[in-house]
């Protein structure tokens, strides 16, 4: 019997939650690259905040490296890895910012998987409108196609007002206009595109406009970061999945007066941190999310 990765995860009891992003229609597979739909999986890492120092993570200098080691130890390597922003922790010093980005780039260069997609978080890009980020990692918004899925990377952080902005929204509309309404679309972004908890600034000021543009498409799923915890939400038929952080966890929305980091638990280092694998069942428009720890055990 042949057991694929998805079946293995289910048999092993460590499979994640399956989210059907659409209405069960069959997507038009041939667009963009013309590649046929084919199941695959990718890994999402988020909110590494390289350069952060403080009690919420006394192990900050090694956490990212441990995550790289963990990802490299996955028995079957993913097709690609995506970092959904806040690669580095912010600094007012442009020289220090670039130093942190260079160090981050060098650490993640040890990933076995060489197809890695980056996007900025506000800590990377909001103080210089993405200038340093672009020097190291390229464009802050772009698209790519992979095995029948159209991926859209949206930048909602280079504008320090947490806005996508008119120009990028026009670009998004033009990109979507080329796609059939049943195309498989995955959006990567940093901040939530919906008002998750505006009282903690967990929103994108013009995110509703992006969601509005995506709404006519029946198979859309959004993966993001920013809130340093797993979170799942639906806006209509569009699923939004927030990832854990690789520096410190934040409290559940509104669960305490301030969005201060949850304290480091010396008895359980890395508790609340992690990354995830996402198995894409392209024909079914399903994304099977498995949350993975920084360290096993």
């Amino acid at each position: 019997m042949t057991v694929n990765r998805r079946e293995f995860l289910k048999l092993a009891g460590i499979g994640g939650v399956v989210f059907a992003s659409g209405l069960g229609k069959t997507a038009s597979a041939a667009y963009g690259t013309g590649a046929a739909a084919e199941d695959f999986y990718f890994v999402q890492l988020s909110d590494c905040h390289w350069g952060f120092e403080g009690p919420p993570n006394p192990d900050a200098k090694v956490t990212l490296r441990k995550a790289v080691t963990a990802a490299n130890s996955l028995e079957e390597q993913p097709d690609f890895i995506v970092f959904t922003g806040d690669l580095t922790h912010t600094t007012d010093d442009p020289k220090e910012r670039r130093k942190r980005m260079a160090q981050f780039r060098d650490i993640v260069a040890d990933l076995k998987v060489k197809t890695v997609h980056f996007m900025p978080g506000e800590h990377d890009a909001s103080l210089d409108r993405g200038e340093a980020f672009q020097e190291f990692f390229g464009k802050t918004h772009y698209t790519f196609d992979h095995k029948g899925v159209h991926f859209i990377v949206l930048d909602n952080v280079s504008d320090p007002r947490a806005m996508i902005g008119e120009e990028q929204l026009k670009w998004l509309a033009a990109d979507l206009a080329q796609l059939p309404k049943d195309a498989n679309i995955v959006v990567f972004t940093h901040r939530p595109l919906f008002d998750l908890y505006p009282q903690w600034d967990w929103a994108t000021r013009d995110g509703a406009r992006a969601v509005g543009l995506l709404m006519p498409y029946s198979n859309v799923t959004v993966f993001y970061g920013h809130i340093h915890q797993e979170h799942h939400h639906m806006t209509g038929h569009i699923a939004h999945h927030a990832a854990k952080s690789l520096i410190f966890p934040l409290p559940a929305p509104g669960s305490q007066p301030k969005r201060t980091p949850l304290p480091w638990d010396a008895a359980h280092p890395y508790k609340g941190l992690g990354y995830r694998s996402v198995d894409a069942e392209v024909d079914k428009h399903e994304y099977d999310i498995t949350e993975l720890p920084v360290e096993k055990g």
Partner: protein
Amino acid sequence: MKRNTRGLKIIAVAVFLGLGGVAAHVAAQPGQQVIRIVAKKFDYTPNQITLKKGVPVVLELSSADVLMGFNAPDLHVRADIVPGQVTRVRIVPDKTGTFAFFCDIFCGSGHENMTGTINVIE
């Protein structure tokens, strides 16, 4: 509407209506309560304000360093705080409770801690 008063610019009018209160970017009326709030990296002074339900007040917002934001979503109030300018926001709270405000324009390491509360009493 834009005019100069005592050498300070008043920010353009924008009216927000919502369940939590009524707010507008306006000049203070004679006799109206005014609360001055200064934003600087990474706090507001004062950061705790007490208002009375139904009583109009004008918040005079200024920045001591960089561009900041002021956002109290439960009261439907938000404004940019531009260095060198005073932003006046009129608010009439129509519900009691404790409501958060925060900076919603990223301003550096410590931005996330730049918060305060508005306590609305009867």
